């Protein structure tokens, strides 16, 4: 396994030119996410309209190429989708990232095997190589966990 598997061109592209970077002004909903292992912090701001559609979202804060590109791809994939669709994306992405942890005997995502196999993760597939680097999974999922928290808070 070479580094090229981790650092695909598309990842570096999102890292160099992150999409939806910055912070939406209030009244957008704002959530901070922490990677407890490395100290990276992201700020997600999101607007969901009355129909439950993600009208806009932006990512701020600092992070490595993996967390930044993953968050960038996430914003591109989620923007304009419904909250329900967003959650499906989150599940699908975390399933992809959890193959490794399952091997470690952690069956927390067992039920996710039933996720729609046709859901197209698109560019996000490029992050597949991350599962070979367990410590970096936390990087790749940082933005996603923060999005989950935001959606939970908005629907609470």
């Amino acid at each position, binding site marked *: 396994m070479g580094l090229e598997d981790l650092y695909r061109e598309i990842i570096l592209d999102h890292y160099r030119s992150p999409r939806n970077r910055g912070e939406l002004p209030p009244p957008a909903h704002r959530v901070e996410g*922490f990677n*407890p*292992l490395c100290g990276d912090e992201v700020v997600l701001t999101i607007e969901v309209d009355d129909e439950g559609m993600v009208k806009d979202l932006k990512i701020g804060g600092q992070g490595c190429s993996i967390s930044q590109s993953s968050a960038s791809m996430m914003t591109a994939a989620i923007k304009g989708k419904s909250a329900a669709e967003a959650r499906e994306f989150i599940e699908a992405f975390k399933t992809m990232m959890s193959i490794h942890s399952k091997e*470690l*005997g952690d069956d*927390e995502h067992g039920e996710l095997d039933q996720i729609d196999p046709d859901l197209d993760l698109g560019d996000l597939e490029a992050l597949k190589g991350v599962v070979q*680097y367990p*410590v*970096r999974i936390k990087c790749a999922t940082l933005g996603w966990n923060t999005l989950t928290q935001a959606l939970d808070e908005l629907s609470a």
Partner: protein
Amino acid sequence: MGLNVSEIKKDFPVLGQTVHDGRRIVYLDSANTSQKPQSVIDAMGRYYETINANVHRGTYKIAEEATNAMEGARGRVATFLGANSSRELVFTKNATESINLVANTWGRSNLNEGDAVVLTMMEHHATIVPWHMVAAEKGIELRWIPLTADGQLDLTDIDRLVDGAKLVSFTAMSNVLGTINPVERLTEIARSAGAMSLVDGSQHVPHLATNVAELGADFFVFTGHKMLGPTGIGGLWAQEETLDAMPPFLGGGEMILNVTTEGFTTTEIPWKFEAGTPPIAEIVGLGAAVDYLTAVGMDEIRQHEVELTGYALRTLHDRFGDDLTIHGPAEPASRGGVMSIQFKDIHPHDLTQIMDQNGVCLRAGHHCAKPLMKALGANATARASLYLYNDEADIDALGDALEASGEFFDF
């Protein structure tokens, strides 16, 4: 078909040692600590020699391998215990720390003046002292389930004892009497009374197949060194909701999500309860221990111990009659291979000292169960305890050593 004990013995290097001019070691103190198979010792050595690094932190190869080795072992130990997920398993340094963890987090935040905690008269100090400490701070009441004459829990009065109690904390198997307690029944009684239950599995996990999901406990603790694992490692099992609701125990690295000069937030379970650099090599060693136990088979181990305990009770009674008292249940099927004995008038310390000359290793003392000893009317007993590597020859050696002690002190 039974265990092939002579092959098993070869896996345990201490058992190949001799003492006192060539006497082979007859190790009968496994309730105290077990011997370790070579595979466990080697797993730790290999860890230190090939992938030693701190976990959850490094982005380099050996750090990732160390993390995988540790978290992989967590998964295998969780499976061995019948847990639903490895997130239900918190590693501690021993069973004692596990119980203190519960007392300090769940206990101190849920127990208030006048609340009751129910213990039994056969508990190890590890179950007693933490609740005494909470009692001193919070003014809670401790209630004690008494024992029958043959060393079983006397549940006659149990309804009154658990009435209004917040917790029932008890051992799955006595480290003095060998009594195997009705764990499922007791956790059910606790639940019906609206109390939580804490099961001390220190003597259960090494000797009987354990399935925490079926036992019905809210908290379940165990210790590595009694189950072929290394020192310095133990565990606490609880369901995710239970662990999530508990405040943290020790503060420091690994257990945080964020720290500022103003405060801190905790990370997810189980790491929330694992402050500081974990006992990495010890977790790896414990993983190798459950691999070994699984390969031999827990049911086979239990079967072997029942038979060997029966052999011991029978032959020792035949040889010594009324000179020898063996505490606890008479029936091998309702007890583990733990035999607390009193022989003639010989003080246990003197008895075990003479036995040592014969290479026979027994523990003398209160076995960290002073309230029980008081109930038995003794300060101390000598205790012989069995494991998968013991055989009938070891029991015969025990009998011979008893005989020798009797002669030495025959004034």
